[in-house]
């Protein structure tokens, strides 16, 4: 599975984007997000970006007011996931131009599409920004 879920959460702990690669019920999601957000947001800058949670790991990184949290299997490469988060942010930055929390709020479906271009079935399939963005731009033109 590799990546199990990707969350974007703001400083107040509100979820701004949630993408799961395994089926969880709404209740499970609510509980999971609550626990994770409590665990990760309490940590400070001097602490490492990896948190063990239940039987998997969470790799997170903060950009401005947004936390990007990725839940991964135990043998996943943490540093690669950090790079993946960075790539995601850069991609969104290129698309939106100086991306901020509001961009993601109002263009949630686009953010989802970018994720879908990058990750399928829990594994990273695309890492080139141009490749990720070109279908999205094409689709935008089409509609």
């Amino acid at each position, binding site marked *: 599975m590799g990546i199990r879920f990707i969350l974007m959460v703001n400083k107040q702990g509100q979820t701004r984007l949630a993408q799961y690669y395994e089926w969880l019920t709404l209740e499970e999601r609510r509980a999971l997000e609550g626990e994770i957000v409590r665990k990760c947001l309490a940590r400070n800058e*001097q602490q490492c970006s990896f948190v063990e949670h239940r039987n998997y790991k969470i790799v997170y990184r903060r950009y401005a007011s947004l936390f990007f949290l990725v839940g991964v299997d135990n043998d996943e490469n943490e540093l*690669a996931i*950090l790079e993946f988060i960075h790539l995601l942010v850069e991609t969104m930055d290129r698309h939106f131009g100086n991306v901020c929390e509001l961009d993601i709020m109002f263009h949630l*479906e686009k953010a989802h599409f970018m994720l879908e271009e990058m990750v399928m079935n829990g*594994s990273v399939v*695309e890492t080139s920004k141009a490749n990720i963005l070109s279908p999205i731009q094409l689709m935008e033109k089409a509609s």
Partner: protein
Amino acid sequence: MSGPSLMDSLFQRSLEDLIKGLRQQLIGEQAFISKSLEEIRKEIKSTDLSTKSTALLKLSYLSNLHFHDMSFAAFPALEVLSSPRFSHKKIAYQAISLSFHDSTPVLLLITNHLRKDLNSTNEFEVSLSLQCLSRIANVDLARDLTPEVFTLLSSNKLYVRKRAVAVVLRVFEKYPDSVRVCFKRLVENLENSDPQILSAVVGVFAELACKDPRSYLPLAPEFYKILVDSKNNWVSIKVLKIFSKLAPLEPRLAKRVVEPICDLMRNTGAKSLLFECIRTVVTSLCENESAVRLAVGKVREFLVDEDPNLKYLGLQALRIVAEKHLWAVSENKEVVIKSLSNADPNIKIESLRLVMAMVSEHNVSEISRVLVNYALKSDPVFCNEILGSILSTCSRNLYEIIVDFDWYVSLLGEMSRIPHCQMGDEIENQLIDVGLRVKDVRPELVRVARDLLIDPALLGNSFLHGVLSAAAWASGEYVEFSRNPLELVEALLQPRTNLLPPSIRAIYIQSAFKVLVFCLHTCFMRGKNIAPSASLDNMPAGVSASASYESFEDFSVENGADAAVVHDQTCASAPITKESIVNILNLVELALGPLLGSHDVEVQERARNLLGFVDLTKPGILNSSIQEKEDSEGKGVETSKIIKLMHDAFSKELGPVSSSAQGKVSLPDGLVLKENLGDLEMICGDIEPPSSNSFSFGSPYEEEKDGLSFSNLQIKEANEQSNESTSLLAEHRKRHGLYYLPSGKSEIISNDYPPANDPTLQGDINDNTDDLVKLTAESLVPKRKPNHGKPRPVVVKLDEVDEKPVARKQPESRDDSLSGAVRDILFGSEDIPPTSSQSNLSNSSKRKGKEKLHTDPHMESKESAVGDGNSSSRRRKDRSQGKERRHRSPRKKDDKERKDTGQKEKKKGSGRHKSRQRAEEPLKVPAQTPVIPDFLL
């Protein structure tokens, strides 16, 4: 009212309106959402697809971020899906990926939609539907859409093909039979030069190899080529993951990949790739000394880095290395121990685990001492983390690393006094466990227990109640080692015990009973000049009761208060006089009187027992105290009889009992067990031992004259003089021999540590950290010491209970069918049943034997296979096929008698079958058959 009107759709809120609305609600967000949901429910029934899709979009948003159920929209989502407009489809697919799961009722209705879109000429439609399939595929969908996915696997549109490759994983998982159809195309994609395809296909294989690595060994050459050629770090990381699974299965493969991995490690600038290399080396290539050295060197760079992420990962990597190469930890111990005081709790815990990995029987006491000091200074969470790991490390394998149990017991006592300690239950278990198992530790255990019991402050801490109950039990059970039993009675009956929960209070009272009986017995038997009983004889020389025997009358009553005296080894402590006994009896009556009305049955019962005993004996004692030492007729004798009786009842030692001990008791003659319980035998059959009744750990004191002598190393068979026959005993020993320590072991072990402050290492020690660094340095150097320390006492072991469960995990059945299918394809042997990894093994071992004969040509071919990575793969395969033929002929001769030939025919058959299936590429099939490891390795 029922259907939405035109006005509704005209003035429908868009998603943007919804979000803006949400943002304006400071309070009452919930009300706003439920109002919007109300609207959505209406809009989604609209016949206008635009209205419907907007409603669906809003609903997806609310479901995704605000956890609102959208299962009611399953059917409308399908309706929107059938829209010809792409933008509608997009919304529908997203909603479906988000909300559909295996038990969604309309799931089956989606098959045709998906099929239509998979066959679409618009690559984005295909992509959307593949994406959706990867999220929601169940068995039926996977089965029905396998042909479409198969076609797309060789689509000439890269964008589509990449996604088809990625979706295959889910299809395989859900419907293993699809492997037979798709696997070869998947493998072909491994040789694709396009980085996008490669990255997808390697990702799929990394996941597949995780579940059942052995099936993918034949693909090692392809993976090797990717490892060497890849320029993409993502791909390299995935390939490394594959090799870390494959390498342990095939030593020759491990030798092959070490070099390229080390090269990567030396040359790469990417930390993520470097870390993956390190992890691969330490998990799967740990036999290769030079690679491990290199990896540990890189780990060190991580450890000293300022970045907490690297530090954390470095510690983790070190923990993996530590299992096989402890030197790696000791080389980096300063960093590890410094990390104990890192700001990050995760790093602290990681380094704590590493410190515990360094513990050995030589340094356990020093490391524990320093860690306990750390625990005193730490926050509650980490404090308990430390205590927990000390407890679990020390008790591992029945206290394997503990030599000095006196020290350990006092450490347990010390740990329970740490303010944040919440490990009371574990300490309780270990105190009792050690007391039962290790006879020699009991005097110290009683001393520790006494210290805990007389401290009234501890009673207020509810986390410690478990520890206190263990202490109470120990002081009652092993009271004969106590220097001042009267003090114990007082401690057990002190007023603050009302803070204890009833169950523990009952233990307190029962222990007080035992102690009291012991006091009376000691006093009475002496007072009457009766020859000392066996148990008195048994007491260690330092025990006061015997020591003060002569000067009995000269001592004044002093107990409780003179704790200092009790501590002192040389000084005889408070004696037991008649007055003190009477005082104690009064105290018992005073303390327990109110408990006769207790609501707790246990407490009431025990209190009644004890008071009844006091009632019985008190008159006799008062009587005899008047008459002093004279032998009194009548009552006095009666009292002493009662006391003796009770004493005997309590003096029988309790041994640890195995959970299967009941089964070892043979059926007494004439006892007929109910016949209708006979079927229980089947249930208990697996724990039924061979019939013997000689299993017993009870070791009555009377038969053990010198059990306390420390020089007595050997396990004393306690029941030597009992009426059990010696033949039974011998049988018992034979059968249970493994529960006893081999006599040799305790001779080697010694606790003759070098002093913690070794002058040679005396540097700038100002901190515990340096302390620990130093001592681990010393104790990690393995040394043999002459055996002139205190020998390790005997630890009684039980049978099955203490043994580690030998759990052989069967591979999961689902994986089996998947890997079975994969094997069918790769090994070309269609009738290898899924579980027959054994036949597989023997197969490969046969091959291995073969290779010994052909070492040189293989090396050659391997080199060239790697070298001509750019030349056409066709050529390579031709050669390998030729090789295969060359190999076959000698093998045929060698193993003619075996069924090898039969198997080969099967291979040929399957090969033919496959070439029929994929006629355009006939050479592929033989290339994948089992010869492949040969030309790689």
